[in-house]
């Protein structure tokens, strides 16, 4: 077992302290609180298609935002900033263009906009729709097996949260095989693999004084190792 101490990603919030009380749900809240949120939602969904990317790349586009862009404009603000990353990566929109257009909209008529660049979309085609795949290899683990979540700190995307890394749990459900987000987000292959819902005791995760409960989380096969 390695001794990597992963750097917290801005999005990796599980178990973090300092966020205050949980909000009391409002039963009659509108789907979109403000009109721009609805526009940002639709723009972000379409930006995945326009940029020739995928859902995992979109999630990663938000994970690499700075704290201001991740938190300060709320959930759909995060979507918009993420979509801008995808459009910038595929050189659909040149750096500075959105800022220049926003300045024009705000009344600054003498702002120059960079010309539209030549798009460079990733060279990638999904093998099927969605994320579930049929694979040949049998699952490495079965329900009831004890497993440990690996510790690693990849330079790019992962769906392995810090708060379970290095901890031992029990396989509760063998889920269908899925495309691996870690490589798929970077267009480096689907690497479809089995996914396991692993159950961790709260005191295994958070120590002997933690509230007593079980935490179930989906982990891709390559995130896991057998214990013992």
């Amino acid at each position, binding site marked *: 077992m390695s001794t990597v101490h992963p750097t917290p990603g801005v999005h*990796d*919030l*599980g*178990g973090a*302290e300092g*966020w*205050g009380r*949980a*909000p*009391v*749900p*409002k*039963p009659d*809240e509108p*789907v*979109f*609180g403000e009109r*721009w949120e*609805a*526009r*940002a939602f*639709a*723009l972000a*969904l*379409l*930006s995945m298609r*326009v940029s020739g990317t995928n859902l995992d790349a979109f999630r990663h586009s*938000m994970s690499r935002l700075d704290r201001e862009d991740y938190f300060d404009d*709320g*959930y759909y*603000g995060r979507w918009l900033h993420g979509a801008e990353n995808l*459009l910038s990566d595929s050189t*659909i*929109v040149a750096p500075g*263009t*959105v800022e220049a*257009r*926003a300045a*024009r*909209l705000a009344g600054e008529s003498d702002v120059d906009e960079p010309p*539209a660049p030549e798009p460079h979309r990733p060279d990638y085609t999904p093998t099927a729709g*969605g994320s579930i795949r049929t694979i040949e290899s049998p699952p490495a683990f079965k329900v009831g097996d004890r497993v440990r979540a690996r510790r690693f700190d990849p330079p790019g995307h992962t*769906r*392995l949260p810090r*708060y379970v890394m290095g901890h031992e749990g029990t396989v509760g*459900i063998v*889920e269908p095989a*899925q495309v691996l987000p870690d490589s798929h987000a970077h267009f480096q292959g689907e690497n479809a693999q089995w996914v396991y*819902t692993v159950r961790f005791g709260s005191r295994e*995760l*958070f120590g002997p004084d933690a*509230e*007593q*409960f*079980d935490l*179930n*989380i*989906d*982990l*891709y096969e390559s995130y896991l190792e057998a214990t013992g």
Partner: protein
Amino acid sequence: MTRIPIELRTEALEQLLVERGLVDPKVMDAYIKMYEKDVGPLNGARVVAKAWTDPEYKARLLDDGTAAVAELGFKGPQGEHLVVVENTDEVHNVVVCTLCSCYPWPLLGLPPSWYKDPAYRARVVREPRTVLAEMGLEVPADRRIEVWDSSSEARFFVLPRRPEGTEDHTEEQLVALVARDTMVGVAEVRA
């Protein structure tokens, strides 16, 4: 440098993509309308009411959630694989996505603001009983808590407990009782 207001930023990006023919505003309108009008928690409430009144359907729902909700016509983005967990007198289930805000769109629509709140995402995997109490739900001390963190493309959906006093309700009457938050596990259904 002053931060650009997000409303302006959104409008700027929309203009840029629309004028180059990359995005059709009518398609944007259709996406928005779908989640404002057509796909929302009423879908989930129909699933719950059917499960409460049809034991064979409930068994299918717990065995293969994806297929069982497709019987009622519910499928689509963020609904590729559905796992249904049942709340009982012994166990209380609650769902979160700590890494973003994954949520079963075909059954519940887009997530409410509390689900996307950093405090909920950070804390419900660490102190769920405390968090649920802050949100207005006291889970009895003798009821076990199971938290489900949606980190793959599987989506978790809570089948809430059927309240006492609803034995004579029709399926339609039951649908009206099942509110959004009960299907994520932060509230109980009230008769």
